[in-house]
């Protein structure tokens, strides 16, 4: 098989199952690609080629003995660095966890292992998943494979860039306010935020527990469906995981049909603040969906304009509580000058040195929003707006099957451009945040390049909670129509690096 790194996960898995190629060869090809381009892309924080090859050989043996029949057996994957991996460094992009090796695996990691998916390493991210550009990593930014001077989105910029630069066919991301979808949009890849509770959070270092959800990243819709199937399902170790059968995402992707469907365009998520090239591609996709037999209707979600404000109170509040555990006492670094400091002084010095600017900013904001005297005006109000946003979705889904919007209002911006302007940075998530607040599911898929800058544009499909299958059904229908026009996936237009 030629050019292993350019194949989809589905193609690789089939070839591995038929013994046309081994997992070892496939893993090797991707490790070679990483050593060739990652110095420039910086998608990975940790790679252990010997361990990956050893695991691939093991998987090859299991396949030879007929012990593995998972649909992704032998395919490599990249893991966002906030998934706990036993004995393998896990930093969350933060200096405060430098050198820490978790004593256990996240449930997702165990599931991938059981399915014979081979880990290539851990990917870069904004520190503790706070950011939209991966510039807030404590280990330096990741570069967008489409233009190395630009951001790959965030917080999961490493996972998206690894997939976009053909370093890995698959990656795991996590999405608290858009951290899977916005990187997918700006790197020309596909990313899915499953319904809250659809994928176990056990062993995922928590940012905002009521918003965090892990999901798949890949270069086409079918690969995300396959990966989603492997990681989904109830986990007794996560009390918020949904105890219900996992729908057949792969069948939904194969169905690829929007005939007779009502697709809602969210009035509030277009126009001002959205780049013209983004809207141009978005409107063109609406025409394609109409040609495919869907009915496009405009719906209003009047409270979405308050989503960003509510999010930037709820997220910092939960994060400031969750991040209290990083105190230099039981794991991670400790900053102690040996001068008989008190435990509070050592904690203060450790957190001051270990956390970066954005993390400190949000911890302060959360501490403020939860403090007495301000709690009702800020956190309490934000929770009420969360209810109103959920009601907006309920009203919309009583009229349409799915909703669509541009995923990100703009294409990838230059590294450094918004680094010290938190408000401008926060606006990147304006279209993705409502989904996290309501807990339903969404996908971003590439719909073309913006005419003014030639950079990828993503379209977001939003479905009701537990209706993740609809994302795959609609996403693959649109994707296949676009691929017919383009003669291949958008990602094949990316520069060769």
């Amino acid at each position, binding site marked *: 098989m030629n050019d292993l790194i350019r194949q989809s996960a589905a193609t690789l898995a089939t070839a591995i199952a038929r013994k046309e190629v081994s997992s070892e060869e496939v893993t090797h090809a991707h490790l070679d690609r990483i050593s060739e381009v990652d110095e420039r892309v910086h998608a990975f924080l940790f790679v252990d080629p010997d361990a990956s090859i050893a695991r691939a050989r093991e998987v090859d043996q299991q396949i030879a003995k007929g012990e593995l029949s998972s649909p992704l057996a032998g395919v490599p994957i990249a893991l966002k660095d906030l998934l706990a991996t036993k004995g393998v460094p896990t930093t969350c992009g933060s200096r405060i966890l430098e050198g820490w*090796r978790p*004593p*256990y695996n996240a449930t997702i990691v165990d599931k991938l292992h059981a399915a014979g998916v081979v880990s290539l390493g851990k990917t870069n991210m904004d520190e503790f998943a706070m950011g939209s550009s991966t510039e807030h990593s404590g280990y330096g930014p990741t570069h967008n494979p489409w233009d190395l001077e630009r951001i790959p989105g965030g917080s999961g910029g490493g996972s998206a860039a690894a997939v976009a630069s053909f370093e890995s066919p698959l990656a795991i991301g996590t999405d608290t306010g858009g951290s899977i979808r916005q990187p997918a949009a700006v790197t020309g890849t596909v990313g899915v935020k499953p319904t*809250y*509770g659809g994928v176990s959070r056990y062993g995922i270092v928590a940012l905002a527990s*009521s*918003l965090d959800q892990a999901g798949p990243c890949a270069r086409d819709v079918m690969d995300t469906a396959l990966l989603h199937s492997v990681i989904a399902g109830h986990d*007794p170790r996560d009390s*918020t995981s949904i105890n219900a059968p996992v729908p057949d995402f792969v069948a939904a992707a194969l169905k690829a049909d929007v005939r007779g469907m009502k697709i809602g365009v969210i009035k509030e998520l277009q126009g001002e603040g959205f780049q013209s090239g983004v809207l141009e591609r978005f409107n063109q996709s609406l025409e394609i969906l109409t040609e495919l037999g869907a009915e496009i209707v405009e719906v209003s979600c009047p*409270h979405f304009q*308050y989503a*960003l*404000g*509510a999010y930037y*109170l709820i997220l910092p509040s939960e994060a400031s509580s969750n991040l*209290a555990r990083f*105190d*230099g*006492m*039981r*794991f*991670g670094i400790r900053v*102690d000058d040996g*001068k*008989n*400091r*008190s*435990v509070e*002084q050592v904690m*203060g010095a450790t*957190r*001051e040195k270990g*956390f970066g600017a954005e993390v*400190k*900013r949000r*911890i*302060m*904001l959360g*501490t*403020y929003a939860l*403090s007495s*005297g*301000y709690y009702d*005006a*800020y956190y*309490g*109000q*934000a*929770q*009420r*707006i*969360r*209810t*109103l946003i959920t009601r907006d979705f309920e009203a919309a889904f009583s009229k349409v099957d799915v909703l669509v919007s541009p995923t990100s209002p703009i294409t990838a911006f230059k590294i450094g451009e918004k680094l010290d302007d*938190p*408000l401008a940075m926060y606006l990147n998530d304006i279209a993705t945040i409502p989904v996290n*607040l*309501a*807990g*339903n599911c969404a996908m971003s898929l590439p719909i073309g390049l913006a005419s003014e800058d030639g950079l990828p544009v993503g379209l977001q499909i939003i479905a009701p909670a537990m209706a993740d299958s609809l994302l795959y059904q609609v996403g693959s229908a649109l994707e296949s129509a676009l691929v017919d026009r383009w003669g291949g996936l958008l990602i094949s237009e990316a520069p060769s690096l």
Partner: protein
Amino acid sequence: MTDAAANGIDQDLVVHLGKLARLELTDVEVEHYTLQLEQILGAITSISEVAADDIPPTSHPIPMVNVYREDVAIPGLLQEDFVPGAPSFEDDRFRVPRILGEPT
């Protein structure tokens, strides 16, 4: 009702928040965060005027009830699993800085 002028953000408050959050902020950071928190809170002030008191708050996307597991013992972590990750460990315990008394 909250507005930008009433959010109370000044340097003293930021220093206090730093103490609560166990962040030993530098003077430059205090100055910087005072401006930025003011700016961020100013931008999201509009939310305080939207929802009436009769709108119930949502703390979690799934209506949660108590979740019980089967009462079955499962193996937990062993000391040897987490000791290598500890900044300081002695006599089967995490060694921590002193917790009482004034700094010397």
